[in-house]
């Protein structure tokens, strides 16, 4: 069992679909504790990413993900642009040159991606950011015994991580300005990260 370039493309199309479908949900979450643009930002970025993917000669999954990264960096802006851009860039770099990607490579790439996000945004677990969905999902991948199970466990872990952001007080990003008032709201970035893992499970698990 391994991930091919075409499966990765399918993953990105599904992720773009999830973002488009949940645009208003992400906007509403970000309106509550931020500035209400996360859904619009991610949708603009993934639309651009699919456009770039259409026209490109892509050697492998890594090349595809690096293309997505650059599209996001140059079209999303805000916090999500550099963070998702870095995430995809690190994963893409790690996977470049492999025509097929197995579980170990995939988990390793995600670990790089997570490290990139944390290096860029300085968020720790519990700061109420996308990192709270990322960490448990990456750990689930790392401790899985096969790819399919790993993908499903990661999606589930991301969902739980996302939900667990609700009671937290934000310490990073725009929501942190609200202090106590950021409580009782689910983090928008953690929510889009869950959709990323959900679409990965759907596209990549056999």
């Amino acid at each position, binding site marked *: 069992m391994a991930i091919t370039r075409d499966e990765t493309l399918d993953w990105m199309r599904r992720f773009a679909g999830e973002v488009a479908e949940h645009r208003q949900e992400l*906007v509403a979450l970000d309106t509550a504790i*931020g500035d209400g643009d996360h*859904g*619009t930002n991610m949708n603009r970025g993934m639309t651009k990413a699919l456009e770039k993917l259409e026209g490109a000669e892509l050697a492998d999954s890594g090349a595809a993900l690096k293309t997505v990264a650059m599209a996001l*960096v140059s079209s999303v*802006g*805000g916090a999500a642009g*550099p963070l998702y851009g870095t995430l995809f860039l690190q994963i893409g770099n790690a996977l470049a040159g492999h025509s097929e990607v197995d579980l170990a490579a995939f988990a390793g790439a995600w670990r790089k991606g997570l490290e990139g996000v944390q290096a860029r945004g300085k968020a720790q677990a519990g700061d109420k950011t996308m990192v709270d969905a990322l960490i448990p999902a990456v750990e689930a991948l790392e401790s899985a015994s096969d790819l399919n199970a790993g993908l499903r466990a990661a999606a589930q872990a991301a969902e739980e991580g996302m939900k667990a952001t609700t009671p937290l007080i934000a310490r990073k990003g725009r929501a942190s*300005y609200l202090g106590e008032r950021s409580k009782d709201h689910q983090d928008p970035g953690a929510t889009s990260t869950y959709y990323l893992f959900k679409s990965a499970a759907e596209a990549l698990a056999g």
Partner: protein
Amino acid sequence: MKKLINAPDAVLHDALHGVEAAHGDRVRVSYDPAFVVRRDAPVQGKVGLVSGGGSGHEPMHGGFVGVGMLDAACPGEVFTSPTPDQMIEATKAVDGGAGVVHIVKNYTGDVMNFDMAAEMGRGEDIEVETVLTNDDVAVEDSLYTAGRRGVGVTVLVEKICGGAAEDGRSLQEVAELGRRVNANGRSMGMALTPCITPGSGNPSFELGDDEVEIGIGIHGEPGRYREKIAPASQISERLMTPIVEDLPFSNGDRVLAFVNGMGGTPLIELYVVYAEVAKIARERGLTIERNLVGNYITSLEMQGCSITLVKLDDEMVRYWDAPVNTPALRWGV
């Protein structure tokens, strides 16, 4: 949502066309990547000044491009920081060999995108200094947050650095001066009404008919707390006290007082607030040597205001008074 726009996704693009049509004598507009740049850029030997940030705060920053202020401004989508490629291209477009100062408001998105621009721009051989503004005293526990937001002081930093750059000061000097203005500036804002971004179509928060939101930022985000509406005198006191006590400003200080409208507040109300600010300053022994009253760093159609005080020194006054010729601020030319 009722707005004078063609489509939510087209606002930035269409507005840039308007800026170009209205101010083409002073600025040029690049559409992809998007930035507004002085007509005569790059000015050889002059330090270049680039700022940027989400749109929806007009006239900031595009309205501050011109002689004596910014060389270029990078507009993001509404309330969304711009992207690194905009910053890189704008930086190249204004570099006259003396280096470029990036004026960045302290928001996670703005900071990270400018950081990436700096990383990606490496090897371009342009020396870049960053001035980060973070004057918003509404953000209290800055250790446990993304830090204080950059708000009203940004306008003043852009003007004063612009004067210094025009005067031939070096990259280090311009950046130091900008940092000093920021370090001596404090702001606080409040809202009577929320705003609606074209992309979301919904109010950024809900407020009762008799409530105001205190300690807001400039992106429609909720403030620190809400309370019952009060007379302008009390609201001004509510904003002035944390400002004055934070630096702290003290008896005898010379200050610049800036009463800024959030976009939807009538100017007559801003003058009512300014009268209160002047009174409070007088009571505290502060001498307002310069002032600015109007809508300069806004949140779309939000009603409300912010107050910024900067403790002045002679150099700041000199560059504040220096000629400026931009769409939104013009004097001495």
